[in-house]
């Protein structure tokens, strides 16, 4: 009897959770369709936004093995919401924002069901909320509606103009996936020096990307 009671409670909570997700969508997602935007077909919607959603989930810390499923679930929910009339496409930016919202909830729900496995941040603390807001701000400012395409193009440009030593360290560390000690041996430096070099290289890359994206 206790088991049945517990199951009933769990089922109710699941339904409440789903209802809560439905009712807490951003208001702008259900706003009327604007005149200046052509509504994407399902295929176009997926094609235009799937890379951005995929990258966003990876950015939030989703594991590689679960990202594909989460992307599928996200688009299915959005498309079905569109069929029900609870979501309408207004602009590409708002659609991207709504997709990120759904993807984020899917990721949190999946991790919660899998035993509260911690992400790179945890929503259970105020610090985590601040970290989440910071991530969201960074993504919105840099990635925008194009799904990080401009950012990646700027990154490629910046990598091509890096100095030899910094470029070599980045290549060995990221492309060849060597450890700091191995990179230090290759470049005839101390590991602490490689750490500093990598940090400065990343900082210079970020500054370079910021300049290019803003321009």
């Amino acid at each position: 009897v206790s088991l049945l009671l517990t199951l009933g409670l769990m089922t109710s909570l699941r339904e409440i959770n789903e209802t809560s997700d439905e009712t807490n969508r951003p208001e702008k997602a259900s706003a009327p369709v604007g005149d200046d935007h052509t509504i994407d077909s399902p295929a176009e919607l997926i094609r235009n936004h799937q890379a951005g959603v995929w990258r966003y989930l990876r950015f939030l810390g989703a594991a590689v093995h679960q990202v594909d499923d989460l992307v599928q679930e996200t688009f299915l929910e959005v498309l079905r919401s569109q069929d029900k009339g609870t979501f309408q496409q207004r602009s590409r930016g708002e659609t991207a924002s709504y997709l990120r919202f759904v993807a984020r909830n899917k990721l949190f729900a999946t991790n919660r069901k899998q035993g509260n496995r911690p992400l790179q941040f945890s929503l259970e603390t105020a610090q985590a909320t601040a970290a989440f807001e910071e991530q969201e701000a960074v993504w919105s400012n840099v990635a925008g509606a194009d799904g990080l395409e401009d950012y990646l193009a700027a990154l490629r440009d910046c990598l091509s103009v890096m100095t030899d030593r910094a470029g070599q360290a980045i290549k060995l560390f990221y492309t060849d996936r060597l450890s700091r000690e191995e990179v230090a041996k290759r470049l005839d430096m101390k590991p602490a020096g490689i750490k500093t070099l990598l940090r400065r290289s990343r900082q210079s890359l970020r500054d370079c990307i910021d300049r290019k994206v803003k321009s």
Partner: protein
Amino acid sequence: MNANNDDRSDAADQLLEQGLREVLQGETPPDLSQQILQRYQGSGTDSVVTRKQNSRFSVLRLLALTAGLLIACLIAERLFSGSGYQWQTTDRLSSNDSAQSELEAFNFEKAGQSLELLMSIPMETYGPGKIEIGNEANDAKQAVGDGNAQRIRRNASLQIVVDQFDGVADNLQALVKQHKGFVASTNLGQMRGQQRSGCWTVRIPSANYDAFLASIDQVGILDAKTENAQDVTANYVDLETRIANKQKLEARIVDLLERPDDKLTHVIEVERELARVREEIERMQGQLRVMADQTSLATVTMNVREERDYVPATKPTLSNRIDNAWSNSVSRTGDFLANLIVWLVSMIVPIIGCVLLALFVIIVWRRRRSKILVG
């Protein structure tokens, strides 16, 4: 680096790491258009996440179904098959194995030496007044002194199990009448669910005591027996002697009253003493009558309970113990579930209230958390 950059360095670093993974390590987003469209149009297969959720729900459904069936089977078995009586029997047997063995050894095979000695005295030789000791109990005879009458107060407590409670009262009444006794008290009731039981206290002449106990199997199966015999001969004789002495004193006081030359004050004082002595004599005679009643009539208390398919206790073997343990476990589980159901029924209103309150708190908490996430 400026302060703004310092503040958002973690998230910006994560974004840079994401970009480097894609540019340098080739971690590019796959094209999932076909899978999503297929699933959207209803022809695709579920994702791994959905499959896991569905399988988890299936397991939960299976567990719920199993628990429900188990509860239904237990309730049905207890309600309709009457096997609950068997459970209670095995429960008692398994939990009291050692006690049962001792009881068996004491009551049915090897009685204690002193009690056996007293029991060996044929009750037919006991009279309601003076009791003559039988030839077989020479040791007991020596213990109370040669030539003295013996007074023994006897009590017995019997636990009797009957298959069918109806008619027990009539059988018992007939048996008591047959042995020239009477029923002193009766207490009928129900215990442990539908199990009926009763308690009778009967008084049986000491002469018929053994015969009565021997014929108790006409009522039911003797499950347990406790006997107590107390020799009150010394007290009885002492009381008799004290009464005789007081009676002699009374006679002398009466003689004093008959003397013609006494003063009035002497007469009053002698009469007061006579009244005191007579009061003592009457009190002791009352005690003597009670003692005579207790020794001439044995008191037998019988607790009779109804138990279907009762199996008398035997010396436990390993298989019996395992069987008893299993039956005990099943019985306790059934009792627990039945009690739980009764408790849930009695607590249904508070439980519903608690569940509704918990749901309300969860809904409020989730909405507040969602607002924090969104805004």
